[in-house]
């Protein structure tokens, strides 16, 4: 990764032109050629530094359900329960965190109603309570990483 890659990452997290020749336009702003931008993006994707180059959708507006959930799992059962939880296709990502509530995952469902159903299914499968903490208000959603 060199300075040009870093510039690409910093600039293109913020947006991308929607037009007939978007790579040409974005490349011009970065002072490189279209082919070079495409080649570098492909390399960043191939190297696993980018998860994708495309849209970030508004899940709720598209009719989906979205929530952050937490569970308190005894250390000795943790791996087994993580496996049970992750087996649900609605579990988008799952992180261990250092707290009594030590398992935190995001649920993304096709409809808002499915959230409660899936939570009940997870509780039934694991035998542990799930704390459901859906977003009530959004103050900032930048989620950008400066390099």
């Amino acid at each position: 990764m060199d300075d040009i890659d870093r510039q690409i990452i910093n600039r293109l997290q913020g947006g991308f032109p929607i037009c007939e020749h978007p790579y040409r336009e974005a490349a011009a702003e970065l002072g490189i050629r279209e082919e070079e931008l495409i080649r570098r993006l492909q390399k960043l994707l191939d190297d696993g530094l980018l998860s994708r180059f495309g849209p970030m959708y508004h899940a709720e507006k598209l009719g989906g359900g979205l929530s952050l959930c937490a569970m308190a799992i005894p250390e000795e059962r943790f791996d087994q329960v993580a496996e049970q939880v992750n087996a649900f296709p609605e579990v988008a990502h799952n992180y261990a965190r250092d707290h009594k509530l030590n398992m935190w995952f995001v649920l993304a469902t096709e409809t808002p109603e499915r959230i409660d159903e899936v939570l009940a299914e997870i509780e039934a499968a694991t035998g542990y309570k799930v704390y459901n903490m859906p977003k009530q208000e959004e103050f900032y959603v930048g989620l950008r990483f400066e390099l």
Partner: protein
Amino acid sequence: MVLNESDSRLIAAIQDGLPLSARPWAEVGERIGMDEGEVIRRVKALQEQGYIKRFGLVVRHHELGYNANAMVVWDVPDERVAEVGEALGRQRCVTLCYQRPRRLPHWPYNLFCMIHGKDRQRVLDYIDQVTEELGLQEIPREVLFSGRRFKQRGAKYR
């Protein structure tokens, strides 16, 4: 704007990424039987209406060295949540900031923000600094660093 069947096809067609070619929208259009101009118009509309929050590059932050990933949670009096949430959201290193429900008695926190950094101690120092600058010393808070990551994928649209 109400989404129709063409919009849904378009949403599904680009969810994994835009083709890396000189005329990506023409390529997308070919796949779903829509001409390039129409694809571009619809994508712009989806973005203007907020169905697409952002278009561009999505990084894998761990792979870029952002391994100190802190969820900072605060127990803010309800009448101050909006004010504190907005102030935290303006801080440079805060990547997300949401109000969520408390789950008493086990979980008293109602304001969540994410701070992604490369080094735990620097993230902790930064949190102390922000707390002081915004005068939030009296507000109970906890910092939950992430440990192992078990799964990471985006939501899927059909």
